[in-house]
């Protein structure tokens, strides 16, 4: 009741606010000048939220104001807000605006300290909490996508709880390496930070800014700073934000569901390839399917399952038009997110506490998968006395993902993607599950959907992935005298992954009237597996900073310190079979099989590393005009042998603030900041496995071998691959040049960066060796790589008066690109049999030129008689090329389609046909706010980005991959070449052409190379903030209701050939595990933010 009343009151006020109350008015005019007596253009002059105007080119304005004394509020970007009282009798005023020192003094979090933004000489981009507020993605990494030029986020799965992986400035190293992520100074997982707790994120991109992190910072650093309490004179600020909505796939789930057309298509493909059908249905069966082809649901006169005697056996025959995808999976599924925080403080103590909860229901229909995430944070700091401050920061993260499946959630989706063709129904007429159809229906022993529909619906294969992450940092700050700060801190972090996996017998019936059957091995084995990985991490830092300005011109900051950290991992795993319960899952319930044997296995493992580093930095500037910084770190790691483990990583950077030069005085009105920067530095990468330099013997259980000695499978020991003991740091030498430009009182902000990064002594498999070597080639520091790139960011932010109210708008565009090239690799002859060669652009795709399909058999015969196509024709039926086959061009003119010497200089008929790295990545944000409403749109995308669909890309290849896919693209046959369909995209129907190494579609070629470039509506938010006056009465200081949509739509050339592949999800799907996968999701959410 109370709530309704409050709501009605709010509504009334909202409405009232939209009409301006008419009363007596008078005119006031004036000029707005800055401290240099220059006119300020575009300053908003207002008397109330609904009455205002804007200064013109001369800084002048005229405004109708109510009679009597009024207060004008003058507001302009880059200046402090001024309030001017205009007494009743005055009609002319002059307002002087002071430059906003806050803006000038804006600080950025850097390694072991903060710096004024204007004094930065390295390449650092900062993201403020405000930019993340509207985003409803489930992890912080996904939210950052597109917001920082040069920060690349990729996601490898659409399943609940999946997170993005981070990369700074493109291809880092051929062993892959991620940026260092520090959360309030300690190593952490960015995806476990509650986005609502974030104060700012600094993305450190170049070596100069990262050098204080030395050995771990070769590929950038991301510093996440969480919110702290502020002195609010004892008053607490409580915020609540909640969102509710749903998610659904970004791609189509509208697969072929007509039994007749599925069988027709699948059989046509398979017969052409193997000489026999896949569904062994005769004419009668096909007639029955055809009779039902339009039945969306089962028609009583035309049942989908018929019992009949075939081959002397009474059996079920299936004639359905069954939509297996939507039987097993939901399109829409609910999500909700809640956050509460409280902060405040007084002169000597400040606090911030927060809690978050995120619940995401997944797509599995019968027993949905559920991801739950909890975040807690508590931060307090005390001033012990004038010299000392103590702070403590505790965070807890917990998540559980429970799902039905086998081992992991993707398994259920991948394995259900085979043999569940629409003719089948999940259950037989007697209510039993269909797992194996009667012998003779399919050409082989194939289990429908591999029984995953039974697993889902029975709900007994419960798996739970649990993650907990606890971190606590205590920090003491001592300021013994002005200018010197000493900070010591200690962090303990405990995190654990605890997974439970259960499988159970799969019940089914193959023939009417038979006893219930059970699938009891593999996915149907009655087994429970539990694993626990526990990490204990300790880190301590001690550093001191001294800052002073000499003679009003020489500003100096010196910082030096040391860091030690160590992490220990302990693994425990146990597996038991034949549990006494199908409902309960605990290792205490492990029983015995019918043989009386108990099957249990245990496993263990542990590893640890330690790092020690000494670092320092010196900043000097002369009158804020000439900036100089040098920093470095001396680092040691346990991951390399004695004698190879220490490295020194120095850097230097300079900046010139041209806009501070006396000669720039005249231009300063337009250009308020112009700075050139340059940096150079070396960093190390110790991101290698813990004991790479030690050769070891490990002992394992056989999966399947025994010598009849004892009641379990036998064990064996194995030796790790040979190694080099002289392994050492992979280093990256980075050059960076940047330009910062702020114009029109910082309305326009531009930053441009260009860089070169040389990754040297990359730890690679060294030389690729012939198999005769008999082991993986030992890693060596042998390869070099050069990455060149640039980043641009342009932002405009302003407001104008519209109908007497300020109309604020802003946009920001970012663009980045890079190219990576191998500059050293042991592959003199440049053979493709080795992974790399000098001069290779990372991501380049070599392929054949093949643009056309033969249109007549004669054409094919003539061509194949003049050109030897045997290298690419393994799957051509009978070895005879026909109309509808792909015409491979003999570009080297030797009459043979081949691979030459398999080298760059003699690649046969192949050439570079594309590059698989995403190029020209961009983001575009546009926002307006007016009269309490705010709208923001965030677009994100990539330029060219090529992909040759891999053999298991069923969604793309359909039966050209394997002809037994459960989820056949709708009307696929319409795109397949035929005499009546000669301009079709795909060649003539032959199964396995893309799947099998012998097929003509298996080889990369120009016709089927896909461009994945996309433009994505990443986020749209529409909000309304209720007028403060209105909500004050119900005790609120702020309230906003909004809609936010994530990943709403994408535009991409891949759409033309497949509605089922998200351009960000077109990963290398090269194993059966990827026949189908958790779809990428978009979300629609409605939310409310309330501040008390």
């Amino acid at each position: 009741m109370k709530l309704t009343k409050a709501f009605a009151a709010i509504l009334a006020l909202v409405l009232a606010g939209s009409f301006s109350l008419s009363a007596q008015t008078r005119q006031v005019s004036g000029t707005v000048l800055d401290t240099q007596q220059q006119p300020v253009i575009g300053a908003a002059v207002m008397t109330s939220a609904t009455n205002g105007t804007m200064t013109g080119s001369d800084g002048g304005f005229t405004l109708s104001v109510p009679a009597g004394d009024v207060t004008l509020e003058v507001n302009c970007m880059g200046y402090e807000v001024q309030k001017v009282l205009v007494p009743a009798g005055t009609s002319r005023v002059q307002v002087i605006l002071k430059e906003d020192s806050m803006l000038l003094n804006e600080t950025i979090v850097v390694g072991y300290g903060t710096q004024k933004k204007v004094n930065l000489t390295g390449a650092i981009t900062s993201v403020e909490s405000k930019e993340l507020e509207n985003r409803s993605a489930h992890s912080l990494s996904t939210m950052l996508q597109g917001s920082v030029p040069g920060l690349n986020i990729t996601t490898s799965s659409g399943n609940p709880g999946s997170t993005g992986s981070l990369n700074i400035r493109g291809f880092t190293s051929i062993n892959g390496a991620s940026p260092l992520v520090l959360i309030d100074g300690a190593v952490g997982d960015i995806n476990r930070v509650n986005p609502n707790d974030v104060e700012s994120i600094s993305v450190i991109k170049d070596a100069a800014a990262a050098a204080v992190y030395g050995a771990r910072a070769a590929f950038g650093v991301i510093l996440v700073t969480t919110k702290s309490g502020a002195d609010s004179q004892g008053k607490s600020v409580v915020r609540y934000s909640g969102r509710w909505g749903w998610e659904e796939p970004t791609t189509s789930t509208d697969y072929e569901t007509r039994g007749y057309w599925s069988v027709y298509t699948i059989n046509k493909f398979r017969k052409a390839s193997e000489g026999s059908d896949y569904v062994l249905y005769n004419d009668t069966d096909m007639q029955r399917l055809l009779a039902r082809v339009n039945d969306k649901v089962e028609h009583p006169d035309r049942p989908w399952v018929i019992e009949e005697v075939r081959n002397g056996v009474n059996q079920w025959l299936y004639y359905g038009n069954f939509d297996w995808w939507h039987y097993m999976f939901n399109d829409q599924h609910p999500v909700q997110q809640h956050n509460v925080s409280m902060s405040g403080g007084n002169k000597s103590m400040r606090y911030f506490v927060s809690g978050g909860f995120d619940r995401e229901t997944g797509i599995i229909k019968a027993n949905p998968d559920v991801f739950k995430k909890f975040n807690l944070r508590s931060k307090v700091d005390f001033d012990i006395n004038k010299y000392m401050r103590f702070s403590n920061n505790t965070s807890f993260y917990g998540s559980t993902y429970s799902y039905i499946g086998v081992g992991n959630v993707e398994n259920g989706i991948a394995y259900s993607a085979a043999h569940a063709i629409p003719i089948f129904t999940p259950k037989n007429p007697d209510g039993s599950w269909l797992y194996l159809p009667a012998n003779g229906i399919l050409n082989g022993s194939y289990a429908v959907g591999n029984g995953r529909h039974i697993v889902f619906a029975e709900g007994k294969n419960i798996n739970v992935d649990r993650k907990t992450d606890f971190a606590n940092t205590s920090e003491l700050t001592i300021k013994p005298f002005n200018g010197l700060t000493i900070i010591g801190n200690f962090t303990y972090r405990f995190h654990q992954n605890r997974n439970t996996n259960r499988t159970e017998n799969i019940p089914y019936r193959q023939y009417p009237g038979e006893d219930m059957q059970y699938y009891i091995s593999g996915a149907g084995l009655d087994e429970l597996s539990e694993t626990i990985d526990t990490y204990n991490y300790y880190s301590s830092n001690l550093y001191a900073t001294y800052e002073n300005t000499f003679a009003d011109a020489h500003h100096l900051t010196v910082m030096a310190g040391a860091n030690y950290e160590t992490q220990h991992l302990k693994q425990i795993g146990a597996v038991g079979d034949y549990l006494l319960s199908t409902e309960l899952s605990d290792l205490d319930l492990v029983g015995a099989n019918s043989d009386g044997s108990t099957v249990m296995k245990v496993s263990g493992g542990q590893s640890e590393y330690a790092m020690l580093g000494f670092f320092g930095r010196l900043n000097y500037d002369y009158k804020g005009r000439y900036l100089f910084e040098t920093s470095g770190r001396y680092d040691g790691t346990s991951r390399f042998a004695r004698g190879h483990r220490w490295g020194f990583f120095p850097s230097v950077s300079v900046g010139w603030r041209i806009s501070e030069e006396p000669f720039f005085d005249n231009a300063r009105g337009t250009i308020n900041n112009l700075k050139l920067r340059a940096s150079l530095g070396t960093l190390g990468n110790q991101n290698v496995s813990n004991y790479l330099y030690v050769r070891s013997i490990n002992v394992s259980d056989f999966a399947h071998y025994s010598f009849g000695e004892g009641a379990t499978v036998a064990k064996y020991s194995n030796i790790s691959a040979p190694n080099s003991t002289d392994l050492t740091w992979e280093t990256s030498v980075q050059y960076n040049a940047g330009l910062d430009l702020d114009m029109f009182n910082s309305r326009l902000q531009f930053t441009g960066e260009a860089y070169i990064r040389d990754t040297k002594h990359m730890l690679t498999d060294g030389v690729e060796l012939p198999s005769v070597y008999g082991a993986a080639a030992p890693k060596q520091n042998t390869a070099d790589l050069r990455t060149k790139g640039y980043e641009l960011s342009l932002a405009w932010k302003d407001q104008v008066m519209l109908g007497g109210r300020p109309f604020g708008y802003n946009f920001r565009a970012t663009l980045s690109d890079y190219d990576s090239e191998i500059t050293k690799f042991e592959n003199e002859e440049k053979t493709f049999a080795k992974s790399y060669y000098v001069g290779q652009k990372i991501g380049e795709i070599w392929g054949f030129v093949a643009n056309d399909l033969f249109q007549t058999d004669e054409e094919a015969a003539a061509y194949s008689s003049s050109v030897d196509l045997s290298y690419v024709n393994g799957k051509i039926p009978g070895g005879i090329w026909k109309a509808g086959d792909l015409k491979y061009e003999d570009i080297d003119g030797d009459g043979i389609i081949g691979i030459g010497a398999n080298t760059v200089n003699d690649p046969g008929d192949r050439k570079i046909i594309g590059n698989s790295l995403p190029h020209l990545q961009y983001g575009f944000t546009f926002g307006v706010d007016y009269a309490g409403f705010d709208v923001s749109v965030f677009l994100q995308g990539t330029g060219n980005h090529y992909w040759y669909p891999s053999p298991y890309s069923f969604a793309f290849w359909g039966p050209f991959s394997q002809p037994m896919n459960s989820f056949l693209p709708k009307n696929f046959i319409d795109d397949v070449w035929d005499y009546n369909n000669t301009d079709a995209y795909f060649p003539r129907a032959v199964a396995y052409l893309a799947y099998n190494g012998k097929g003509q579609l298996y080889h990369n070629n120009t016709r089927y190379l896909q461009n994945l470039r996309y433009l994505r509506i990443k986020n749209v938010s529409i909000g309304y903030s209720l007028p403060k006056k209105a909500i004050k009465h119900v005790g609120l200081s702020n309230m906003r209701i909004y809609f936010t949509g994530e990943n709403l739509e994408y535009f991409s050339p891949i759409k033309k050939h497949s509605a089922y592949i998200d351009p960000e999800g077109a990963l290398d799907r090269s194993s059966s595990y990827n026949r189908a996968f958790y779809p990428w999701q978009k979300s629609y959410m409605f939310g409310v933010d309330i501040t008390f």
Partner: protein
Amino acid sequence: MKRYIVILAVALLAFTACDDILDKKPQSKLSPETYFTNMTELQLFTNSFYNNLLPKSPYNVQSDQYIKANPSDLVKGGTNRIVPNTSGNWSWTDLRKMNTCLEYMEANCKDPEAYKIYSGLCRFFRAYFYFDKVRMYGDVPWVDHEPGTSDEVLQAPRDSREVIMTHMLEDIDYAIENLPESYSSGHNYRATKWAALALKARFCLYEGTYRKYHDISYPEHPYTYYLEESAKAADRIMKEGPFKVYSTGKPNLDYAVLFSSYDEITDEYILSINFDFGTELMHNATAAALMNSQGRNSLTKKFVNCYLMTDGTRFTDKEGWQTMQFAEEVVDRDPRLGQTVRLPGYSRITENGGAYSYSPVLEGVQADITLTGYQMAKFVMPENNLANDKFDRSYNDLPVFRYGEVLLNYAEAKAELGNITQDDVDRTINLLRDRVNMPHLDVAYAKAHPDPYLQTEDFYPGVTDGMILEVRRERAVELAQEGFRYDDLMRWKRGPLLARPYYGIYLPGVGVYDIDGDGKNDIALYGDGQTKPSASTATVIAKLGTDLFLSEGTRGYIEPLHNITFSFDEGRDYLYPIPINERSLNHNLTQNPGWNDGLSF
């Protein structure tokens, strides 16, 4: 202020303990420097060779004797076989482990007994490893040490099979001298001296006959040298070993029991692989034989033709054998036929406290399971647990080497040398015939009467020695489905047999057939224009020329793989192709003849 600087300095010094705190050694793994010292360690390390190298489904190797609905690319040949980029067959991982083990053992092992056994075992497996390589690739590089990254062997050309065989002989002779005659477990799940001798007999026979028929000669050793070595090795097992042909005096049961017994019969299994229900170590032999869904495994007509009559005469000498129907042709044949192929009145063996007998009669032919009508019966588990007639639920032990093979290897080596005597046959083939109560093979008679059927294009045209033909018949019959046939064809240079039509039982034309004579109709065959018989007419209803093809159109042998083209390229298919990547990484590796790998050097 001074105070703070002191604190800072002390703190910094505390950090400077440096290297010691950065030494982290693995806590859950052992170091090779202190390993390879005793029996336990060496046994653990060598255990993986058994798992990685020994064949775990010999019953499933396709050839002209045994075929599936979707034959393997190897059998189909032609464009179905291509040169791969990489291949698991060209893997050298296990060889490196053997060499690693030998090298470390040399330095670390102070127990002479352990050293003796496990160096012998490593070398046994090294010979085993190279035998696989030679069979597939012919010439291959020889590596007997742990190569370094710049070892010249990585860029070496292939060594001739003569070089490899010479090293293999050194290895196997060492193994024979050093491996124990038995293990305390009483099982033959681990390699003994006898297993080494059996391996020697096997690969020497392979090499001898391969060279003889492919006309390969090296000055160092003539092919006869290998045949003699083979015979000598086999002879040693026969004279010194504890093995015998397993027999309990039940000619219609003993042969079948040997392969279906849950636990190896150590009378005859020299080395075998342990399978066990309790620990879920299982294979697929039973399902392969009994389930429609396992590829419809089938034996072929020509293979069945090889079985003699119980009186020792040849089936193919009988009047009208060509058009004999199934129920008639299987009467009075070598008892091994009924223990290899499912015949009318077939029974599953049952086990009762270790004693085996036949269970009550089951139905005969299951027409929808085989393609040819000849359903396999060997390696099928005793029927006391029908729940295990499923995919991968068989746990009868499988042989790697058995005495029967050794006897046949001896006989063949002698026959190929041309000096086989009646005594040789009595010590070998006739022992196997005794088990099934078949008349003895007579050398003089066989020499005088070479079987014309075995000289047809379907078998061995050009082989005139009647003893060689009879030894090959005996080998086909006795070792059916034990994984030898494909290799036998390769060494006898009879690859084209893979491209001959695959036939099943004889059907005189359209009609309804009770194949096994049990009073129940198995196949109803109807022709064009005829109405389809009702489903209850027979188990299988097939339309001639659509569902089922006969070798002569309207009558003849069932031709189940009618739509599939088989070919065998004699200039190419006796050896596997070297993978493209390997040749790209080592230009000195030559490609085997006839293979187009797209590489232009």
